[in-house]
């Protein structure tokens, strides 16, 4: 479904990704692991066209994405749950979800409301707070909203950047349960995480990024089992 081939991305003169090759198949949850500044977020930004790769190709469903505008890439069926959530704080919960469906603004309103119902079904808390400004929500609620907003675009591929960051452990489990539910409902997911154990527990495969390169690529079960890899690349004890 998504294929990055030998992608190099630079920030000015500084290389952030070096020859990154990775693949996500339809229906999978793939996990991208790595420490700080390993290139995880840059991979997301490259897929979305926020930064342009200097070399290599990004393909989605067989078509090239590199060179397209972010808006066009989103319209092709990819959406993002960004790091640190970044909901629109001065908009209500409902308005945030409506922004999520921006690319579908020409579709009948009934279609949009059906998806909004689906999001409210996944996150009943959001329905209770639909008229409230997003800035007044708790961190966990904002994370729900960021996920709901991304789903409103009805993506075939959902990118998630550190969905567990800043959440209480109990809530982290809840979020990953929901990620699994979303996947079972038919959305392919590429998730970037520092919290390797939780992320690998729901993923089918994983990649470990280090200094902008793919250091290890294996099934989630194998990565979970390999203590030496976790120690070497993920900074775990």
């Amino acid at each position, binding site marked *: 479904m998504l294929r990055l081939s030998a992608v190099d991305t630079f920030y000015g003169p500084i290389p952030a990704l070096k020859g990154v090759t990775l693949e996500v198949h339809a229906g999978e949850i793939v996990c991208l692991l790595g420490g700080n500044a390993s290139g995880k977020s840059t991979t997301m930004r490259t897929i979305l066209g926020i930064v342009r790769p200097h070399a290599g190709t990004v393909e989605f469903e067989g078509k090239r994405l590199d060179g397209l*505008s972010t808006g066009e890439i989103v319209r092709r069926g990819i959406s993002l749950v960004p790091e640190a959530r*970044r909901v629109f704080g*001065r908009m209500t919960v409902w308005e945030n979800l409506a*922004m999520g469906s*921006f690319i579908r603004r020409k579709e009948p309103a009934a279609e949009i409301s059906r998806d909004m119902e689906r999001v409210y079904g996944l996150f009943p808390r959001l329905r209770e707070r639909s008229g409230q400004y997003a800035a007044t929500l708790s961190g966990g609620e904002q994370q729900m909203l960021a996920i709901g907003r991304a789903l409103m675009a009805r993506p075939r591929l959902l990118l998630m950047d550190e969905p567990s960051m800043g959440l209480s452990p109990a809530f982290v489990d809840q979020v990953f349960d929901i990620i699994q539910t979303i996947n079972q409902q038919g959305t392919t997911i590429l998730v970037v995480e520092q919290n390797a154990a939780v992320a690998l527990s729901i993923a089918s495969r994983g990649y470990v990024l280090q200094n902008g390169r793919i250091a290890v690529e294996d099934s989630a079960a194998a990565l979970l089992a390999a203590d030496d890899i976790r120690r070497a690349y993920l900074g775990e004890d």
Partner: protein
Amino acid sequence: MSDILAILPQQLVFGIALGTVYGLLALGYTMVYGVLFMINFAHGEVFMIGAYIGWGVLAALLDAKVGGLHPAWVLPLMLVPAMLCTGALGVMIERLAYRPLYVRGATRLGPLISAVGASIFLQNAVMLTQGARMKVYMTNFLFPPAWRFSLFGASISALLVVMVAVAGVMMWGLHVLVQRSTLGRSIRAVAEDREMAAIMGVSVGQVIGTTFFLGSALGGAAGVLVGLYYTQIDFVMGYSAGLKAFTAAVLGGIGNIRGAMLGGLVLGITESLAVTFINPAFKDVVAFALLIMTLVFRPEGLLGEGLSDREKV
């Protein structure tokens, strides 16, 4: 003292009329600041050109000796072309003077200097094509001086009522557009987090262009109303009016649409009261003292949020 109290209602009425026009003009500053974090110093000139277009329509109608001039059809005939042209002019200014700078990663200072340049260019373009002498709005042909009524000792002309009504309807329309429509939501999204807005699929360039169009069109309308009210316009009129409206925008909280409307009203009424109670010569002193006091004591403005979450390099 009783003399002063007797003219107070009258001054309040003038203040409200002036304030709604300041507010209309302030919206242009605040909307552009909202999406680009820059002060569009050419906005005063956009306003001035709106006044010239309105004047041109009215003068042409009078020249052609069209009979039965009535504001009900003449005013739209002045406002619509003025707003369309100034709206398009705003979009052009953004494309030519600002976009080439910020897409190359200029700091906020670059577009600011470019704005001053655009302002000088437009002033001189109007001076060269229209002459340096002032133009006279033949307001009396449209709003006969006899059209007025008394309220609480204030004499209110039909023109004042129309000004407040037109400005009020436009502000209300803008408010509804920004708060309720998909376009309005996308403008707010770009103002709050440009990158996230793009990730939602919003075309940021288009939204910025639309924002310039809306703000400039309202500025053009303000130009026509001010022309009708003061009856004399010239190519430098945008300078002081622009500064006043900018003051109103800062007073209300720059980037905040309701703030611009409120700031305009507060400034208009304060100025009118200063004329009454202090000395007409101190009108501008009071206006700018208000600006300085706002910047010192409440830099985020009356309705503004804390600066920190708006600040952006």
